[in-house]
């Protein structure tokens, strides 16, 4: 995951400067790209079970849980929506937090657009599959040429979509079958999931300082603001950090 985000950061610049990948070989080894894609898609997909279980524990129905994976399809945003609702937040807070976390997918789309050159219905499908993993694998394949990058995007996007939704359903069914979520450690799954998503982003002292101060600020605000709002408030902290570290 750390490599993935690293390549997103580096590859993003590369794609922006060049518009598209240059030095295109005549062909690429589909099997190699496919195995790279599945190496990302399968473990990330199984993570869907944790989401499914957490969503049920937060009070969402099995149908709602599966719809979040089918329609929203972005892990961090999905965990945020169920996490905010679980802590007693309003739908508005859940939507705001989920959407703020979903903003980066739009920037991935911006990077992928010149590579994929999608129109009409394929653009709708491509957009839905534009997440950390599909973008990261596409960028990591750039040395093998445009076709390999495109193949990596689709193979990873479709692979994650399939396994994420499958395991969401399994996790939801499993969580529905057990009684007290805390007895099975399910209430620790959500913070652990967020920590797992946060971890590879902590690349230097600035990001670490931001993470620690955001956590402290949120805990400070929890007793005084409505549930969910303290989390959104920390986005302002990120903006302050951003404006001070030029």
């Amino acid at each position, binding site marked *: 995951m750390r490599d993935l985000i690293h390549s997103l950061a580096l590859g993003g610049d590369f794609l*922006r400067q060049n518009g598209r990948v240059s030095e295109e070989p005549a062909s690429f080894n589909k099997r190699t790209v496919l195995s790279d894609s599945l190496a990302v898609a399968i473990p990330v997909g199984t993570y869907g079970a944790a989401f499914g279980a957490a969503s049920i524990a937060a009070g969402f129905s099995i149908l709602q849980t599966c719809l979040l994976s089918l329609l929203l399809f972005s892990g961090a945003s999905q965990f945020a929506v169920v996490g905010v609702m679980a802590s007693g937040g309003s739908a508005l807070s859940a939507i705001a937090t989920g959407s703020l976390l979903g903003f980066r997918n739009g920037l991935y789309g911006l990077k992928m657009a010149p590579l994929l050159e999608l129109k009409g219905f394929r653009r709708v499908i491509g957009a839905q599959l534009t997440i950390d993993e599909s973008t990261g694998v596409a960028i990591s394949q750039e040395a093998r040429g445009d076709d390999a990058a495109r193949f990596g995007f689709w193979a990873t996007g479709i692979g994650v979509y399939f396994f994420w939704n499958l395991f969401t359903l399994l996790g939801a069914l499993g969580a529905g079958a057990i009684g007290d979520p805390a007895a099975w450690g399910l209430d620790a799954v959500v913070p652990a999931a967020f920590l797992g998503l946060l971890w590879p982003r902590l690349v230097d002292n600035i990001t670490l300082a931001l993470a620690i101060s955001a956590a402290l600020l949120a805990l400070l605000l929890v007793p005084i603001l409505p549930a969910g709002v303290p989390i959104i408030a920390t986005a302002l902290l990120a903006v302050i950090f951003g404006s001070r570290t030029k």
Partner: protein
Amino acid sequence: MNQLWIATLVSSLICFLLKYLGYRTPESLLNRPVIQRANSLIPIALLSSLVAVQALTIKEQVVIDHRLAGLFVAAIALRLKANFPLMMILAAASSAVVYNL
């Protein structure tokens, strides 16, 4: 329609539109340093505060309980470069053990 349905459908719609707009927006509009920086820092603040709130609060109160044990084990697992599924299982198991003590 209740809050859970609103949260499910509206957040799904907005998150899809954000993805789709990426394919319809002129690159120059978002390709500014301030946007790029906000894009890398905002998720850090949100994810970190979600960790804290989900692990250390119940309703409006800060509480230390079994979940912190799970989080601690998760951090060790991540530090040792465990993969995600293993990290989650270890976190859940250690939290469950402390809860059931």
